[in-house]
């Protein structure tokens, strides 16, 4: 389809999309400062919409999440927050899929010793809060890395709106050279640490405060690394996996940019000022798996499209429940297309953890 024939509606839209895209700019070092920072802003701006998508899924009963509503302001709520069923199912499926793998990681590691989770570009993601506040798991040390503005926002919401939900909450802060790392401890043993940090600096600076190389560590990139240049992402993956010999990784990002749907996706996102350099670099399921083997040295690597995650990991009972929420999903073909263009690829290595299906 030629570009001029593409309805350019998306270009008029501000930040839209989904969650977890507050991360380093994708433009890399070759781009000038102003365009790089404006892309950073575009990416951060979409986080608002992300939180609304999440809230839509929560309000309609797809997901249970007492935290989601606190990341959407009153003003944002004045516009309709309900998303279409296909988007709600997508939000549900990828959240469920990643949760499933996180629980595999947790159940395979020793609960009496610290387990670390590092979420790259977490934005308003609430997974940390859910795990942190749950008494089901102990000894979780959860770390979120994001731009200082995003971290500041999250810290503010946690300390104001979520205080009672997360109580007892023992906050502490640790001034760094440029900004402050926030930590929250919830008795007896779970901690949450927010690192205000441009991901691009991860290629150089490890370790981070409160992280130990000897503990089993799970790295999560939920549609985050895809905004960075492949050379940067491979350095990040390689330096993290080297630093944590026993580690797992979960990466969620789009694939298949070259078929008709994929071309339209790239073009629509470009119209919103969003580029995904890794989409070109790792266009297929196989190349995504290879990426984890080669760049991270992960010995066990697996992957599943979101379409397959729905098919394989969501139980029949749960499928029925979810489908009933909005009277069934009519857009079956569109779902297969859309969900077939998103992949969860995961891997693990070292002792003391396993993330088998």
């Amino acid at each position, binding site marked *: 389809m030629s570009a001029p024939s593409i309805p350019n509606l998306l270009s008029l*839209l501000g930040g839209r999309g989904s969650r977890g895209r507050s991360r380093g700019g994708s433009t890399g070092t070759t781009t000038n400062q102003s365009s790089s920072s404006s892309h950073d802003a575009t990416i951060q701006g979409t986080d608002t919409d992300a939180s609304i998508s999440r809230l839509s899924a929560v309000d309609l009963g797809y997901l249970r999440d007492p935290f989601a509503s606190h990341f959407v302001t009153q003003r944002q709520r004045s516009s309709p927050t309900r998303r279409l069923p296909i988007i709600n199912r997508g939000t549900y499926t990828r959240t469920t899929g990643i949760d499933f793998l996180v629980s595999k990681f947790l159940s395979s590691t020793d609960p009496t010793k610290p387990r670390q989770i590092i979420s790259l570009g977490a934005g308003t993601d609430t997974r940390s809060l859910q795990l942190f506040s749950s008494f089901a798991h102990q000894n979780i040390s959860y770390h979120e890395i994001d731009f200082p503005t995003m971290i500041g926002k999250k810290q503010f919401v946690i300390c104001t709106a979520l205080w009672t939900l997360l109580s007892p909450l023992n906050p502490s802060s640790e001034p760094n050279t440029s900004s402050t790392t926030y930590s929250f401890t919830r008795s007896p043993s779970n901690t949450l640490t927010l690192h205000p940090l441009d991901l691009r600096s991860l290629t150089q600076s490890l370790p981070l405060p409160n992280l130990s190389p000897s503990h089993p560590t799970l790295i999560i990139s939920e549609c985050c690394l895809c905004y960075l240049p492949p050379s940067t992402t491979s350095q990040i993956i390689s330096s993290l996996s080297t630093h944590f010999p026993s580690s797992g990784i979960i990466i969620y990002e789009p694939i298949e940019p070259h078929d008709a749907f994929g071309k339209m996706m790239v073009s629509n996102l470009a119209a919103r000022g969003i580029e995904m350099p890794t989409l070109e670099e790792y266009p297929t399921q196989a190349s995504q798996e290879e990426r984890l083997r080669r760049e991270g040295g992960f010995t066990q690597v697996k992957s599943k499209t979101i379409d397959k995650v729905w098919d394989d990991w969501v139980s029949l009972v749960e499928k029925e429940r979810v489908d009933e929420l909005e009277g069934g999903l009519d857009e079956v073909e569109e779902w297969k297309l859309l969900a077939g263009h998103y992949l969860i690829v995961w891997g693990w290595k070292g002792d003391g953890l396993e993330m088998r299906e």
Partner: protein
Amino acid sequence: MSDLDRAIAQLRACRPIPETEVRELCHKARELLIEEGNVVTVNAPVTICGDIHGQFHDLMELFRVGGDVPDTNYLFMGDFVDRGFYSLESFLLLLCLKVRYPDRMTLIRGNHESRQITTVYGFYDECLRKYGSANVWRYCCDVFDYLALGAIVLGASYTLPASPGRPLATPPGADVEIEVCNADQQIISQFLRKGRGDPPNGSMENGVVQQSNGVSSSTPTNTGPPGSGASGSSGGSLGNPAGAVLCVHGGLSPLIDSIDKIRLLDRKQEVPHEGAMCDLLWSDPDEIDGWGLSPRGAGFLFGADIVKVFNQKNDLSLIARAHQLVMEGFKEMFDATIVTVWSAPNYCYRCGNVAALLELSEDDSGLGVLARSNGDVNRSDGGFPGGGAGPLRGVLTESEVDSKPLLPGPARRYRVFMAAAQDSRGMPAKKPVADYFL
């Protein structure tokens, strides 16, 4: 009718008409539709279209490619509303054209022409946004209840007339069954009629039509020229009208074994959650044997055997249906006994698909319409109320199928088109519902 023409002009410019006019229009439309049977009889020539889904600019493109109303007769197989940003303008324009040219426009009901579905998928919100109240949505839903459930196309030609001013690429006298054209009236590919014994063409099953250069080995059809032993029309000769074509939004129902049974339904209601009426609007063909559960949670999946038996019993040569996104715009299945036509290009401004419409031309052999059973209530053995009430009863057995060959399909011209450039028409672009879950 000047008011109506004025409304048409306004809607063609993608501007909604006032609420009072909508009320009047819907009232007129209902009076018209109430007179139509559940299964409307339509004579060829006719251009058959699939889902529109509020993609107004693409509907204009469809008219540009397929010819304007009333020069071209149209049959729209439902799903006018939801998903796109201009459901209101699209549906009201089609309804105006229906009232203005009742014999040239046929509208049948899709599963989105329903109160429940439109509250989830956008039409309700759009009406509320554009009028400040749900009145217009209510008027439209009342019209939905009166839309026919299906249509029968009669008198479609077995042969394809040459495109005006465009000589066929094949030698004179070649028996073209399928022709695919692009939006600029250029022929992309042609497929000749072939004997029945040939294996079905896989690429056609997938809707991927390749340049055949008139080579018959790639012809994807089960029917053969009359007299070749591959066709059941014993008295057939070139130019004979083909078997009838059933048009329905979704597909078949295990509760419906004859077209007469569709005629007996009480359609003037909201689309039920189950039952024959629901199935007709919700079901999908699939590569299975018999019937299967639908992933949509309504309707059923049905296999090639079901289609062949149904077509045979009802003297149909083809079922045309919509309902499923197909990336190439159309997809013939089951030895060309059923085709999916999809008319919303770049669906939801996201899917990157092309759209298609299906032209059936008029038979001018003068031999008239084939004798059919489907127009006569109680004529067929399985007819109501005598027998075949159970879901799987009343269908022919395999041996009966073999003994009664399938009717030859009409010659089919598909016109494939892409999404219109919205900005080029100076329309205000609205906030899209299309999104990616990133």
